[in-house]
């Protein structure tokens, strides 16, 4: 009998085999996917040669449309066609309605989990993003000829924890494995930095459809160190459109509320006018009103500049503050990189040039640069470039803290702290015999709890009764490399522990996510089972591969007994993972992980001491 070696897609059988990976720019208005192929990062296009996918999802009676086909329905079927879902993700209903009062949707769901009622039922903004991701994933599979091992998804640097978590949840629902969430300006810096090999301080000015980021980075021998980042997660080119729409409404003497399709039409005409005015001095606009009459006007570049001037100024103020945070003067900035479609607006370019006193770089298409940077990072992360010198050191965009007495916020991790980071703060009880303590986690720069974003609340219970001030409660904040926070609290003398992955306030809980995954599969229960099995098998083979490589390199750090234990755990995992039992694979994985915990730590410590021992020799 011939032996066939069957390799699952995306699962490598040989180490260092080229793995498929991609970078996704999940934008407010447009999304792209890019990949590194034979050393070159480029965007992937659909079967009609288009690489930009409008971030629009339309819920029709018997199918879901994404991209251009959905865009075509955005006026006539505004209520079922969702645009700019990124502006809604991870936000409360109140937040959305105060910021965007004229959205044409029928909102439902609760305050912290707003949903949009479509003809296919209630849809969460996370699910809308998941549809966009699915569509890009299919495109990449077709273009690259196989399933992706993992992707890097970019997010605005200024995204808060809830928005980041929601983005990761969307990928989970779409069935995509996320290697890393990467900040958009950092991705752009990678795309430019690797191109030019430049060293020194650069500024990345990223004005997208719905978000604005400014990042200051120091580039040095493949290391991209973010010094500071700032911006506004609710300011972008869409706001230019909104300013124009308001102007049109006023000029045409219209009275709100307007019909959803008229609102959409006004938005499209505003966007059209803005785009035309990048090259022209004047543009004519025609709007067909609900009574079928036409209203016409013309708009000059000067008028546009006046309408958007204060918004552009707002971005420059953020630049000033971020430079100050980075402790960098404008003269030290050697290059300004422009990212995002909205940087095509002439006023934006001229004002940025004036502010930084140098001509901004626009040599890479500002629509594609983020996806390209993400693709380069994905290629490295997936392990295709083991000798890469590239390292991205990013920061937390917003301060993280806890509520203390009197409704004040005590900062635990200040903004612009390099991630990953772990910080602990000690608190005590203020009443005799107090046995529980409420922990309220907040994000933001302001002093008062009410002015910051509430991320989560939890309670540490079972503290032994002591006199006030005797208990030592240690609250630990950890932010991982994706910028995601987890918080734990412990009473030190008794060891009572309570911890939380910060997500409940605005994110979706795990049950809801698995429900959504099930809903999105045709044959729910079986598919789900198959997917879990597949995930465990991939993890098992990854662990075996890495432990074997580790043994080969560093078995000298182990006793013979320890080696024997590890080897037998490998053997049993290898055997079990051939089967169909998810639980058994999980158990065998845990056993192997337990047996290698000390080994993994010793290896890491030994590589730390070796890294600088080499340097000491270099210096001599």
């Amino acid at each position, binding site marked *: 009998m011939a032996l066939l070696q069957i390799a699952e897609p995306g699962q490598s059988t040989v180490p260092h085999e080229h793995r498929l990976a991609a970078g996704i720019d999940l934008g407010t208005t447009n999304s792209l996917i890019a990949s590194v192929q034979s050393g070159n990062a480029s965007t992937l296009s659909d079967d009609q040669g288009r690489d930009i996918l409008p971030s629009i999802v339309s819920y029709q009676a018997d199918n879901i449309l994404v991209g251009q086909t959905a865009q075509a329905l955005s006026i006539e079927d505004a209520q079922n066609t969702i645009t700019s879902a990124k502006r809604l993700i991870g936000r409360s209903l109140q937040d959305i309605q105060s910021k965007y009062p004229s959205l044409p949707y029928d909102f439902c769901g609760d305050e912290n989990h707003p949903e949009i009622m479509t003809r296919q039922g209630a849809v969460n903004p996370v699910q809308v993003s998941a549809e966009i991701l699915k569509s890009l994933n299919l495109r990449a599979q077709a273009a690259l000829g196989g399933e992706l091992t993992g992707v890097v998804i970019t997010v605005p640097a200024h995204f808060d924890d809830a928005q980041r978590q929601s983005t990761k949840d969307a990928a989970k629902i779409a069935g995509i494995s996320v290697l890393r969430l990467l900040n958009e300006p950092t991705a752009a810096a990678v795309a430019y930095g690797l191109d030019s090999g430049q060293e020194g301080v650069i500024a990345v000015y990223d004005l997208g459809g719905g978000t604005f980021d400014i990042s200051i980075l120091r580039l040095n021998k493949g*290391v991209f160190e973010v010094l500071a980042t700032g911006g506004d997660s609710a300011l972008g080119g869409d706001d230019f459109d909104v300013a124009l729409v308001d102007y049109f409404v006023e000029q045409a003497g219209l009275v709100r509320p307007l019909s959803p399709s008229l609102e959409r039409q006004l938005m499209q005409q505003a966007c059209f006018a803005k785009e035309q005015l990048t090259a022209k001095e004047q543009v004519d606009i025609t709007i067909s009103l609900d009574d079928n009459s036409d209203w016409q006007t013309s708009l000059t570049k000067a008028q546009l500049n006046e309408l958007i001037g204060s918004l552009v100024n707002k971005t420059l103020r953020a630049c000033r503050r971020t430079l100050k945070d980075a402790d960098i003067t404008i003269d030290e900035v050697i290059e300004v990189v422009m990212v995002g479609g909205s940087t095509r607006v002439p006023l934006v370019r001229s004002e940025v040039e004036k502010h930084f006193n140098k001509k901004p770089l626009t040599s890479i298409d500002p629509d594609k640069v983020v996806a390209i940077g993400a693709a380069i990072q994905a290629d490295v992360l997936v392990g295709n470039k083991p000798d890469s010198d590239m390292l991205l050191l990013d920061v937390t965009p917003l301060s993280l803290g806890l509520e203390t007495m009197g409704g004040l916020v005590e900062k635990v991790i200040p903004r612009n702290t390099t991630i990953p980071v772990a910080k602990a703060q000690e608190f005590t009880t203020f009443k005799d015999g107090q046995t529980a303590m409420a922990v309220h986690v907040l994000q933001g720069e302001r002093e008062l709890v009410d002015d910051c974003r509430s991320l989560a609340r939890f309670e540490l219970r079972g503290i032994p009764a002591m006199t006030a001030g005797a208990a030592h409660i240690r609250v630990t904040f950890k932010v991982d490399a994706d910028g995601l926070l987890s918080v734990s609290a412990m009473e030190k003398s008794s060891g009572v522990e309570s911890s939380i992955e910060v997500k409940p306030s605005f994110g979706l809980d795990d049950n809801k996510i698995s429900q959504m995954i099930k809903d999105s599969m045709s044959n729910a229960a079986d598919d789900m089972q198959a997917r879990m099995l597949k995930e465990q098998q991939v993890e098992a083979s990854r662990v075996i591969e890495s432990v074997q490589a580790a043994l080969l390199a560093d078995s000298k750090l182990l006793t013979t007994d320890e080696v024997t234990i590890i080897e037998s755990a490998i053997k049993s995992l290898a055997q079990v993972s051939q089967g169909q039992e998810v639980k058994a694979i999980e158990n065998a994985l845990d056993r192997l992980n337990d047996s290698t915990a000390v080994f993994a730590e010793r290896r890491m410590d030994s*590589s730390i001491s070796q890294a600088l021992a080499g340097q000491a020799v270099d210096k001599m």
Partner: protein
Amino acid sequence: MNYFQLFNIEASFDVDIQELSSSYQTLQKTVHPDKFAHSSEQEQRIAVQKSAQINDAYQTLKNPLQRAEYILVQRGVEMPNEQHSFQDTGFLMRQMELREMLEDVKFSSNVDAALADVQNVLSSEFSQLSQVMRTQISENNAASNLAACDNLRKLKFYQKLNVEVDRLEDSLFDD
């Protein structure tokens, strides 16, 4: 292993920031979670932990006040907690004057100039006091360490004032 050993640099208050930063980057190239993105979850977890420790150590040595505190604690000097009262009434008086100066900025006829004045005064007093502390740390005896500790606390007052200045600046220029 203390932080200076970790970065393989001389244990002194006068740190060569270039050298520190270069060691830091070398270490992060070894342990950063990005280097383990395709490894097992266990290795990823340890990488996050080590990388966070190295970030913390780097921040501590990079920032002069944190570095001073770290050195003094390593020497066994006990840091009084923040509520501990100050004996130096002259210093406290000066702090109150500075605070008043800051509060008056927004009533000034030339806000920009008034703010710049306050910033100049704060930064010159801060650097004078820093110099004194630096000398005391390098003397390294029981008395000088205690004196350095006292000055470190004073410098933290200035740091807090600087935060107030930033806040004021934001509120003045954010229309």
